[in-house]
């Protein structure tokens, strides 16, 4: 198993009556709720946590891209990743990822991801989400019905740019560049591991399998609800005649560890409820503009998000519900181990994106939970997939002789050095 410590970077100062006063945490959230001076402190707290996670032994540290969003402070995850590249040297840096349909031209993503891969010594995991409709359509103005086509073209340009050793002309429908010539290029060959985060579009499965990319199901609603979707994915994997390595799939899970189950509730309940009540309060039409999902997916899925009932569920959630229905995995190390094992085996996943910081959780609690997990839970879940112990197809392949910039003081004297040959 590979464990990645992931921070969504929520804004921890949403008011108690946020739900009642505002229709959405995303897109049209009043930006007067953001305070840049507090933001300074928040960024450094979150960045410190990501660096701390490396010292705890997590395999990866992760960030993602959201815009105009109360639970995400990373419109540019690449800036976050750049700071991590300088201050860490072992963990994979998982940028899950850049919403490539929104970049004009998408060569920018090929360039920035290459920069990150080179700076980190080959530790980049590159995520290419279609992007939520909130981000890609409502904040970045892409036409919903054409978003997938534009995504497909952006992906083609980026992969070709990384693969090609010569300048080429790209005559796309949305992007025309006469001279595509990626500079710098990534360390990892033929390219960094590629993760495709999906929220449940069935087309994404085939796309992942066409190129052998990792399929990452990012949900905040836990493994019981994720099961039918992952089952559908694995069925598709079998139908396509691909091997069933669990490393083909990743899942995101909110995790809270304490000394006992009761202690977990005492420490973490208010912060998890903050996340579900306030951070997930999204005006439903922003999540599903006409054309964003294909008709096949619309017909496949339920419309529950449009009903008042669904909104009510989030409003009146209790800790007991969160735990009993496994939206979150919380409790003593033994409880968490047992439920996570069920999650990992049930979904057949080789990668777990672990969400330890939730809502407005203070730094000390986040570290406490992460540390307990790293010491008492992670070691016991490491070898759940013995048959695939050496399957590194979906993981980073860093340089052996990479530098460790985090160990040097910026002002220290350096010996005279020529450029390495």
């Amino acid at each position: 198993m590979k464990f990645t410590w992931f921070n969504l970077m929520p804004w921890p100062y949403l008011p108690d009556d946020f739900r009642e006063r505002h229709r959405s945490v995303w897109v049209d959230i009043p930006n007067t709720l953001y305070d840049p001076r507090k933001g300074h402190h928040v960024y450094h707290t979150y960045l410190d946590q990501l660096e701390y996670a490396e010292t705890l032994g997590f395999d990866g540290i992760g960030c993602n891209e959201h815009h105009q969003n109360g639970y995400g402070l990373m419109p540019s995850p690449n800036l976050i990743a750049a700071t991590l590249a300088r201050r860490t040297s072992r963990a994979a840096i998982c940028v899950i990822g850049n919403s490539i349909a929104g970049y004009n031209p998408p060569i920018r993503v090929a360039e920035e991801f290459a920069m990150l891969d080179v700076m980190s010594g080959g530790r980049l995991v590159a995520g290419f989400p279609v992007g939520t409709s909130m981000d890609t359509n409502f904040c970045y103005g892409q036409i919903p019905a054409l978003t997938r086509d534009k995504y497909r073209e952006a992906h083609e340009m980026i992969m070709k740019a990384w693969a090609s050793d010569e300048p080429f002309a790209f005559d796309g429908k949305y992007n025309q560049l006469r001279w595509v010539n990626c500079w710098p290029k990534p360390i990892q060959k033929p390219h960094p591991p590629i993760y495709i985060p999906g929220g449940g579009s069935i087309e994404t499965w085939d796309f992942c399998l066409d190129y052998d990319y990792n399929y990452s199901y990012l949900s905040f609603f836990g493994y019981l609800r994720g099961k039918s979707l992952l089952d559908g994915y694995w069925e598709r994997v079998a139908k396509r005649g691909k091997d069933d390595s669990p490393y083909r799939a990743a899942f995101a899970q909110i995790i809270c560890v304490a000394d006992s189950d009761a202690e977990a509730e005492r420490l973490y309940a208010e912060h998890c409820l903050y996340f579900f009540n306030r951070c997930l309060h999204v005006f439903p039409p922003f999540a599903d503009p006409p054309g964003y999902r294909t008709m096949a997916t619309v017909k496949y899925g339920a419309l529950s998000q449009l009903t008042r009932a669904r909104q009510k569920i989030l409003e009146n959630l209790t800790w007991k519900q969160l735990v009993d229905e496994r939206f979150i995995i919380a409790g003593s190390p033994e409880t968490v181990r047992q439920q996570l094992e069920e999650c990992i085996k049930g979904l057949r996943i080789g990668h777990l994106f672990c969400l330890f910081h939730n809502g407005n959780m203070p730094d000390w609690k986040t570290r406490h939970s992460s540390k307990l997990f790293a010491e008492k839970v992670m070691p016991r879940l490491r070898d759940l997939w013995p048959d695939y112990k050496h399957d590194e197809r979906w993981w980073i392949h860093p340089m052996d002789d990479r530098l460790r910039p985090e160990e040097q003081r910026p002002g220290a004297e350096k010996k005279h050095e020529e450029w390495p040959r």
Partner: protein
Amino acid sequence: MKWRMIDTKKGTRCRVLEGGSGTPVWPGYGDSTGDELLEDMLDFALHGWDLVDALGLSRPHVIGHSMGGMIAAEMACLGPRDLARLVLVGPAGVWLEERPIPDIFAMLPHELADVLFVDPARGAALLTGGADLSDMEALKDFYIVTQRRLAMAGKILFPIPNRRLSKRLYRLTAETLVLWGAADRLIPPEYAAQWKALIPNARVQTIEGAGHMLPWERPDPFVDAVVKFLA
């Protein structure tokens, strides 16, 4: 496909394409397919002219409502000598910064009627064919049909219904009637003045007691105004 003759008050006759099975419907609407072939404003406008050719018409009058008005106006800019007269009914396609149009792509199903109709309760019944949207199955049916249409419309209306038609409207030399529902809450009547200012030969008529869905809300005064203009 059926044509019907209409007698105008002045004694001239018009041949009008009647709704119903076999009537051409815009791709992405009803059971009309081929929507994937139309991607941008030029595709839309040329498809309009393709239809005129396919029907074997010469210099027809063209009438367009809402997004249809945007397409009709664009057609008229492309081929100003290929049509007779033009009627634009609450057309989309122009954007006034001081009067932004509500975002129909960010509305709950039950909110649509509020901006489209002067009488939302009656409008909701018209929109859904009387179905009850609190019933999950009815909601799903309504949702799928609406999503398909609006997905298509989004290609020229999202995120802002402005594809730079304003700079081409000087080419629209056909005699034009701009019809507007006085209580239009989607594209407010201020827009009528802007269209009049941009089109060389346009007059504006406002109809009381109607919102954006004027032809459905006040069919009689609407038909009267159109027939009178075309006569």
